[in-house]
């Protein structure tokens, strides 16, 4: 137990000293039992401040230290590492006299409260035990969920650094949305051409185990040691044997819409979503196939010379242990049927932005030709509507961040295809904040002579062959009526519903847009609240490809930082169960937000120290008062309360 405590009161410039009489705090504390020394200093966290602590510990022969300053969330780490040079770091405590005192109280009250807070901290410190950090082993293998550009980039970065990666993709091929795009702003390079080399690199990388057509169905454990179960859905085609000759496809009698082409192009029940798919193999769509059980059709099997088709394939559950998880499950467009004001779902000539991407794509349903879907002719007047579902309290309140840019791209590509056509863009305002983005917009506006109309569209309806778009130009105040051949809606970007399911497995929060919630919006934008789980790409927020790739590399570097150590160090301030007295009621097991309390075979509760965050919920909930928090024991807390009240 601490016998010679030193108290260091920080001025924090005027933050504390402007309100609290710091000299009086030091003076009062000098008189308090157990305190051997007390002083004040301008900035305790500065180098001279830290040196003052070092010097006084030696001179005054101190064996414990209290820093009365800001929140421990800010500087506990700083001061504990100073003290570690002399004694156990858990002999260093902070009393928060800034956030909980000087910032919220008047002068006189603040000083009184500060004195009490520091005295209470003295009482707590006297009950502290010397603790050693907990070490947790690490499985140096990473799970990446989602094989869009973000997941691909993260997997490649980690694999290149020499660690194993399992990349799980639910669809038949990796590539995600980027594979569906035509050309990409601002440089207009072909999306497939820059993506496919990375897809192939994933397939070839010796450190990446690619599990496409698979889903993560269970996750348990904690940083360094997650246990995951992955369901490998049967393709009914042997990936290695299939030569992608396509004979089966010709033979298959079932014709259904291809999701990859936004359902605007047909495919067969046995299919490959797009020619460059990775893994390169055909897949039987179980739902659409005429009959696997009982087997009725088998035309594809008869046609397959490679003998790659096997109707007896079964779903397989693969279990893996990984040290870290990256979630990169991407985005969807806002549900088109909800935009009744724009008449979607009812008219062939009102389409979404992703449908337009497929139309522009050389491998798409029209082979890259721009058509008016109802007639198949070239549309001479096209209206693009930005913020369809975004920045709208009735739909999604946020900005989808990329629609200004891709709409400018759409209008430009339209003009390249149909030079005598007219393009109109309705916008609220233009947000082009990326590198070279403003220049791109300027080019579209000036060189391509696209008509930008500032204002919102009120109504869209069909009149004969045309779609009439009604709006107001808020710059001139005039009503605008355009009789268009084709209307393209820049739909809001939302997180996928699958993201919500994965988030539930990981006990991570999602917001109203189904985007994953990061630990800190500024300082921890790729981290989940629980350690070892990271986010990349549009699963976290709407973003363009460069931002998705950058975030993926950031997430990968976080994973590599974990993998660079052999063991993880963790704060030992955890819950301790007195097993002899535990009645096995299980309240703590059900209440722990981190899943750290687990029932042993003998029915008694046990704290998995690696998982416990020391929140204390279980200790408060235990009906037999049988759980103790290390260094927050009941006696300590009782004494603190005594001093304060």
């Amino acid at each position, binding site marked *: 137990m601490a016998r010679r405590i030193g108290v260091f009161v920080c001025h924090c410039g005027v933050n504390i000293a402007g309100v609290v009489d710091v000299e009086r705090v030091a003076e009062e504390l000098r008189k308090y039992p157990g305190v051997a020394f007390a002083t004040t200093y301008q900035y305790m966290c500065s180098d001279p401040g830290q040196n003052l602590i070092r010097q006084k510990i030696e001179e005054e022969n101190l064996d414990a230290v209290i820093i009365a300053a800001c929140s421990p969330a800010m500087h506990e780490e700083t001061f504990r590492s100073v003290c570690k040079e002399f004694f156990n770091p858990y002999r260093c405590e902070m009393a928060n006299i800034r956030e909980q005192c000087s910032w919220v109280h008047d002068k006189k009250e603040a000083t009184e409260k500060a004195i009490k807070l520091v005295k209470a901290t003295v009482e707590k410190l006297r009950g502290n035990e010397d603790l050693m950090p907990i070490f947790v082993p690490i499985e140096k293998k990473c799970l990446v969920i989602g094989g869009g550009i973000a997941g691909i980039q993260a997997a490649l970065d980690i694999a290149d650094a020499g660690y194993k990666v399992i990349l799980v993709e639910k669809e038949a091929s990796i590539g995600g949305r980027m594979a569906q795009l035509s050309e990409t702003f601002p440089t207009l390079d072909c999306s497939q051409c820059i993506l496919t080399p990375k897809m192939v690199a994933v397939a070839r990388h010796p450190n990446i185990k690619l599990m496409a057509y698979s889903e993560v169905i269970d996750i348990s454990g904690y940083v360094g040691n997650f246990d995951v179960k992955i369901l490998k859905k049967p393709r009914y085609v042997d990936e290695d044997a299939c030569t992608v000759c396509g004979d089966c496809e010709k033979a298959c*009698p*079932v*014709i259904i*819409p291809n999701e990859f082409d936004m*359902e*605007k*192009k*047909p495919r*067969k029940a046995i299919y490959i979503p797009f020619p460059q798919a990775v893994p390169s193999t055909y897949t039987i769509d179980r739902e659409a196939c*005429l*009959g696997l059980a*009982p087997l*009725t*059709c*088998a*035309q594809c099997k008869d046609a397959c010379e490679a003998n790659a088709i096997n109707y007896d394939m079964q779903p397989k559950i693969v279990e893996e242990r990984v040290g870290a998880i990256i979630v990169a499950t991407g985005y969807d467009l806002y549900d088109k049927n909800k935009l009744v004001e724009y008449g979607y779902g009812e008219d*062939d000539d009102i389409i979404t932005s992703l449908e337009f991407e497929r*139309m522009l794509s050389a491998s*798409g*349903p*029209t082979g890259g030709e721009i*058509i008016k*879907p*109802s007639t*198949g002719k070239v549309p001479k007047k096209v209206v693009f509507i930005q913020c369809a579902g975004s920045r709208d309290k009735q739909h999604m309140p946020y900005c989808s961040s990329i629609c200004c840019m891709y709409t400018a791209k759409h209008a430009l590509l339209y003009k390249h295809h149909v030079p005598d056509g007219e393009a109109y863009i309705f916008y609220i305002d233009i947000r082009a904040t990326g590198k070279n983005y403003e220049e791109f917009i300027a080019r579209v506006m000036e060189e391509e002579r696209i008509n930008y109309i500032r204002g919102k569209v009120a109504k869209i309806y069909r009149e004969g062959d045309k779609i009439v778009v009604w709006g107001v130009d808020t710059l001139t105040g005039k009503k605008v009526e355009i009789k268009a051949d084709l209307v393209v809606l820049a739909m809001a970007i939302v997180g996928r519903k699958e993201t919500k399911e994965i988030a539930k497995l990981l006990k991570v929060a999602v917001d109203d847009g189904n985007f994953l919630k990061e630990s800190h919006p500024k300082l921890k934008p790729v981290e989940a609240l629980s350690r070892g789980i990271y986010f990349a790409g549009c699963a976290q927020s709407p973003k363009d490809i460069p931002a998705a790739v950058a975030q993926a590399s950031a997430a990968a570097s976080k994973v590599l930082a974990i993998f660079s150590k052999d063991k993880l160090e963790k704060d030992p301030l955890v819950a301790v169960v007195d097993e002899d007295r535990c009645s096995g009621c299980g309240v703590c097991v059900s209440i722990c937000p981190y899943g750290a309390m687990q029932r042993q075979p003998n029915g008694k509760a046990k704290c998995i120290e690696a998982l416990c965050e020391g929140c204390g919920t279980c200790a408060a909930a235990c009906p037999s008062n049988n759980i103790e928090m290390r260094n927050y024991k009941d006696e300590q807390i009782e004494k603190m309360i005594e001093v304060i009240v």
Partner: protein
Amino acid sequence: MKYWVKKELKPPHGKVYIIKDRCKGCGFCIEFCPQGVLQESEEFNAKGYHPPKLVETDDKKCIGCGFCSLICPEFAIHIEKEEEEKDEKAD
């Protein structure tokens, strides 16, 4: 729904031939046809059974998978596949 393609994919087509008097009324073909092309008829054949007939007046929905003839124990039904001649030649 409408596809944006110039040349729609056409499903293959089969012509159904039923040899009524061979049928012994087991109904396998009706049960197993994935397209639901066949149904039991009212009429009696020489053996006194109800042979199958087409649900619709023609066999438009038949995709010529041939499963009916494969499963028929009496070889009472057979299929002639129609080739997609026109398309092939046009290309």
